[in-house]
């Protein structure tokens, strides 16, 4: 049977590495936002809301959401493919991980949009 994968595994690994490296930088900015003020203050409701009103920070949050979701769920897919190899398992793993990734990105984006409008 012909393989109908859109991307080769080598291309998917490159995406995995690029999303991993990019995630390190955006997560570092996210952590710095918690450290430029005293930690307790950084978790206060008004401070968090003001973060979500800052368009630069919103872009950082959305980037974290997309990069970590793609990297994380692809990592799970890789682990599951290491455990078992056949066409049905591979297809099922790909569908489940991509669906979970889309669901998490959609849920997180919903939070960002709603809080930005508060």
């Amino acid at each position, binding site marked *: *049977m*012909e*393989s109908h994968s859109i991307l080769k595994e080598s291309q998917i*690994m490159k995406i995995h*590495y690029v999303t*991993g*490296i990019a995630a*390190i930088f955006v*997560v570092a900015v996210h952590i710095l936002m918690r*450290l430029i003020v*005293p*930690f*307790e203050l950084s*978790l206060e*409701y008004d401070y*968090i*809301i003001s973060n979500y009103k800052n368009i630069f920070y919103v872009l950082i949050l959305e980037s974290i*959401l997309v990069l*970590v*979701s793609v990297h*994380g*769920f692809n*990592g*799970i897919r890789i*682990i599951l493919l*290491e*455990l*078992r190899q*056949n*066409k049905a398992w591979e297809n099922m793993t790909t569908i489940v991980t991509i669906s979970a990734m889309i669901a*998490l990105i959609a*849920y*997180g984006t*919903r*939070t960002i949009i*709603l*809080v930005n409008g*508060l």
Partner: protein
Amino acid sequence: MKEIEQPSRNNLEGLKGWLNPSRYGWERISYWFQRLTGVFLLIYFIGHVYETSTIVNGQNAWESFLELTQTVWGHLFLILVIGACTFHSANGIRLIFTHSGIGLGTPGRPDYPYSPSSLNYRQKSGIWIALILAAAAMYYGFNILFGE
């Protein structure tokens, strides 16, 4: 293209074999940690996305959910997350270099005791650097979370 016939799975150890850190030395433990920290961080990330979504329901909902996490156990869990995140990042960078052929050394004649040249001191020190950075980040996190 003809599909390859699937062999019997009787010879596979499955999850038990995957979780076995012995037999292969430090590189195997690094492989194991990379996957365990990855799964742990994804579970944390999903929880974190859910936790932050409570802010949509207003200040009371946010503060009552925050009370659940701002405890000694919550802080200890966060310190574990910091350590896992630092190890996964540093070891991940080592793996990217390794996958690109950097730090593998040159092929040599296999002589007794047949140590593979790819598992050289650069690779081993990379694993140690990742572990030391994780410990340092956990110490820093401990001071931030418990130092006030």
